């Protein structure tokens, strides 16, 4: 039930017509910013994010360098016009936290030890927000890193799942996100299926938690198919 008492599930379908486990229409594109080493655009319904990668490149100041490994820096930012009530530019606490968890979601996939003393900088910009912005950003970052030719063990795929009106759903939009009983963001190494980001809030018992985790894994598999397709197709056409 939403804050206003509005139902979010009617006759088994969500307000936007989707089935509970159905994802929104997804668009993905790579190599959209030619000044970056790698870049991508990912849309999940009304949530649009772009990501760009600069690097590996020299890291200054020197004291930040790690002599035996490269570092990954990640900045997640929401554009002021991305939300209904204009958001002041610049990092707020939420963006600071998301920048951290996004970095830790992607780091395990990268062979940072191949680039001692260097840095790989990832920038995620949310241009339009309609729920599940951090996982959309992480999907974009993963594509941008592959596009940049960064040595990686695997791609990273992310999705959101949750519970609305007692029903377990995948890919929450803004309204569902704000009115959910449980909302969970998960990212994993796409083929190895190892979880690198997990955040959940709400109230759920352990059994339901495990069902949600499995739903998240299944949803990530669907999203990975699209990431794969986009990367392979980019180099097919002239």
């Amino acid at each position, binding site marked *: 039930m939403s804050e206003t008492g509005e139902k979010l599930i009617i006759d088994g379908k969500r307000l936007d017509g989707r089935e509970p486990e159905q994802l929104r229409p997804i668009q993905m594109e790579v190599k959209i910013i030619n000044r970056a080493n*790698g870049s991508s655009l990912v849309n999940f319904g009304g949530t649009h994010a772009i990501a760009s990668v600069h690097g590996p490149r020299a890291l200054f100041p020197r004291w930040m360098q790690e002599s035996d490994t490269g570092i990954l820096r990640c900045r997640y930012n929401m554009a002021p016009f991305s939300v209904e009530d204009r958001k002041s530019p610049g990092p707020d606490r939420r963006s600071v936290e998301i920048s951290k968890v996004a970095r830790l979601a992607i780091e395990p*996939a990268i062979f940072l030890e191949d680039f001692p003393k260097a840095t790989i900088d990832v920038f995620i910009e949310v241009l339009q927000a309609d729920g599940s912005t951090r996982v959309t950003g992480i999907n974009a970052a993963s594509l941008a890193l*592959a*596009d940049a*030719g960064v040595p990686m063990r695997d791609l990273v795929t992310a999705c959101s799942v949750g519970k609305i009106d007692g029903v377990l759903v995948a890919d929450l939009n803004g309204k569902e996100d704000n009115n959910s009983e449980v909302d969970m963001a998960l990212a994993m190494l796409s083929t190895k299926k190892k979880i690198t980001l997990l955040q959940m809030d709400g109230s759920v018992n352990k059994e339901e938690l495990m069902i949600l985790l499995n739903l998240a894994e299944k949803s990530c598999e669907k999203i990975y198919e699209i990431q794969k397709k986009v*990367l*392979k197709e980019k180099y097919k056409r002239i």
Partner: protein
Amino acid sequence: MEIKEIVLPGELIAEKKGRKAGRGTYFEGEKVFAGVLGIPRVDENEISVMPLSGVYTPSIEDKVVGIIQGVEISGWTVGINSPYLAFLPLSEGVSEFVDTQRTDISRFFDINDIISCKISKVTKNKTIQVSMRSIGSRKLYGGITIKVTPTKIPRIIGKGGSMISLIKEKTGCEIIAGQNGIVWMRGERKDKAIEAIMTIERESHTIGLTEKIEKLLGEVV
């Protein structure tokens, strides 16, 4: 236009079967996976992936085109289009005896000079040293440099140098393609050479490219 199949990081390429897991791959037990987005190469000795993009990571013996970035006391720092700055020691750049107390070594190489040289040392920590002692190493006067994706250089050079010879012949330019993605050229029809090289960079993974370049250059006056 046909292309060879692309692999993504994490995709299984083949079983090791006694072969080497070469560049662009990693292995877990007997399985060899792609470690970068690129084109897989599998033969009886090695499994590797040629990246479609990426920055230049220096390897010993690579011939590169560098730009002098700093003049130190006993050598020069050289930009090689990589996250790592290289060092050219005095002894590797100049064959005559130099009294460093009295000589300002910028008379040999000064900031912004372009040189062709060879990577002579790469330590585990990516400290890079270059040398001009090898054949073909010299200061490059005049001309211009362009930057291309380092992984496309082999295609620009071609089998046994066939592609780059074609471009040099048809445009009358002197061209040196460094493995670090910097290409130096000097001559009248640089514009045609650049066009050819940019075309190769864009379409390096396609088959039928050679014919296309021949056609492009065939019209040069």
